[in-house]
């Protein structure tokens, strides 16, 4: 009996000590520094409306928020430390896990960066580029669906979440067909693709587009233009343009504040210059420019633009860039990835904003692995603006603002 007890205590990996919580992530505001009317509310890290493991330290005066202090790092997986030890192609699965709801977009950005350093970015076959854009745009729609769906959940509408998850499921299945994985693909490789798109994918994708178009109309009328939704989100969490730029906010959040800035147009990377699409911006149609409604409106509009892009990609992929027996998507994939020694910053438009990768490459024997990879994560910047725009709002509106910024903690914490 005694030995049994001894064994069970030896197996304990972590002995719970309440004091450790205050040591590892102490409060910024001392409890003794609070005014008589102030109350300190802790939200998260395990809370459904913090979209992951974000913890907020909120100082309130009744219902009015005086200060918000985000605590991050609960999902830190040492991406940058891992990247220092891995060859360039083996980093791609880690890149997937940054923004796990838009992994294709992240892979695309990463692969483009390494290709530019290798100097092969001009030689990538057009068919490869179009497939990349096709899957990235599919994933962008899926990511926006998650954003709008969970946002609905945050502010009290449950049905759109289920509908959007159902529609996202179709996209996930398409991407599973392409790559074998539902969320973390490792599909876009440096210099090419893992595999050509499967036979029949184009036709199935046409069907999907046909299916999604009325669903987007429905989403617009039932959710975004809904009177209750408008009243809940209009003029809430107004993000002025100068503040957004100063905090480095990009993507739908920046465009919601009224700036037509999209890296797909500005940097004109990949085959985006050959494609027709508009960049929707927020105009304050329901309240003030840059409010929560504008940000969600921009996301829905972007889904429509993505569908336009997908249609054009499919047209090319079934037209002049048709499937060909001799086509090898791995033809240009280098056996050894050894970029010249340099510093390089590459960026692309993720579904949430500007995703950048900074590389420093080594020389000689160390050229196979990067010396340093730094991720300029869009969610990280979008979240950083939260304390600035949530001062003086109601506690319930904080959740509405938080959801409308659409961050993924996997990317914030890396």
């Amino acid at each position: 009996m005694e030995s049994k007890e001894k064994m069970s205590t030896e197996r304990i990996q972590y002995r719970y000590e309440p004091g450790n919580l205050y040591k590892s992530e102490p409060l910024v505001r001392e409890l003794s520094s609070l005014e008589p009317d102030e109350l300190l509310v802790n939200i998260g890290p395990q809370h459904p409306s913090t979209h992951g493991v974000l913890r907020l330290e909120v100082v309130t005066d009744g219902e009015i928020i005086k200060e918000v202090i985000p605590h991050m790092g609960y999902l830190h997986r040492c991406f940058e430390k891992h990247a220092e030890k891995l060859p360039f192609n083996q980093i791609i699965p880690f890149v997937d896990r940054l923004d796990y709801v838009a992994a294709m977009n992240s892979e695309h950005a990463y692969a483009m960066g390494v290709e530019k350093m290798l100097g092969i970015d001009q030689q990538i076959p057009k068919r490869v580029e179009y497939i990349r854009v096709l899957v990235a745009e599919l994933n962008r729609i899926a990511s926006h669906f998650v954003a709008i769906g969970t946002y609905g959940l945050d502010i009290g509408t449950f049905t759109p979440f289920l509908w959007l998850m159902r529609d996202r499921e179709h996209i996930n299945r398409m991407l599973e067909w392409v790559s074998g994985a539902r969320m973390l693909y490792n599909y876009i490789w440096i210099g090419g693709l893992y595999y050509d798109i499967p036979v029949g994918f184009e036709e199935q994708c046409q069907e999907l587009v046909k299916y999604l178009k009325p669903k987007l109309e429905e989403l617009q009328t039932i959710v975004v233009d809904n009177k209750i939704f408008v009243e809940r989100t209009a003029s809430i969490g107004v993000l002025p343009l100068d503040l957004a730029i100063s905090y480095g906010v990009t993507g739908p959040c920046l465009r919601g504040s009224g700036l037509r800035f999209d890296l797909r147009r500005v940097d004109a990377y990949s085959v985006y210059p050959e494609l027709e699409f508009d960049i929707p911006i927020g105009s304050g149609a329901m309240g003030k420019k840059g409010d929560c409604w504008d940000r969600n409106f921009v996301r829905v509009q972007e889904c429509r633009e993505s569908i336009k892009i997908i249609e054009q990609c499919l047209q090319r992929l079934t037209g002049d860039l048709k499937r060909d027996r001799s086509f090898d998507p791995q033809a240009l994939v280098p056996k050894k990835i050894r970029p010249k020694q340099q510093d390089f910053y590459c960026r692309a438009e993720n579904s949430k904003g500007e995703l950048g990768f900074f590389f420093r490459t080594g020389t000689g024997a160390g050229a196979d692995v990067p010396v340093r990879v730094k991720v300029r994560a869009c969610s990280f910047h979008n979240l950083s603006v939260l304390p600035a725009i949530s001062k003086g709002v109601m506690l319930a509106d904080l959740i509405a603002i938080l959801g409308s910024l659409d961050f993924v903690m996997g990317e914030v914490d890396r």
Partner: protein
Amino acid sequence: MNFGELTSLLTETFGEGLMLASHTQHLQPQLQVAPERLLEVTEFLKRHPSCYFDTLSCLTAIDNGPEKGTMEVIYHLYSIPFHHSLVLKIEIPRTEPRVESLSAVWRTAEWHEREAYDFFGITFLHHPDLRRILLPADWEGFPLRKDYTEQEYYHGIKVRY
């Protein structure tokens, strides 16, 4: 403005002594400036009507290792209206890494500098809130330094496995 125009504008304004080196042989040219003049240079670059670098895209810290004894901080500036960019670099001693914070110029820098402090232990002077951002507050050491060795136990949990 391209890199050459920007460097000549900076030398005109601040004199020859500002630029310590410019690395132009690569795809993205870099400009190395003295760390103590960083704040005035960036403020100038932000305010000047023909530069107008309104965003700080990225801030990266790099440890060059104990042999070289230096750390680098690399700033990627970008101007939305002019669509031009500039890479600034500073080098600071590894034994006492400290540099002026840019969070007053771009608010983006605030969290980036906290991250650099978290992983490299670089002190950013006059930073409004310099705490660890991703690691727990009682973590020992700075993990992205080249000579980092992880602590053996953290709250009774074995770190190395």
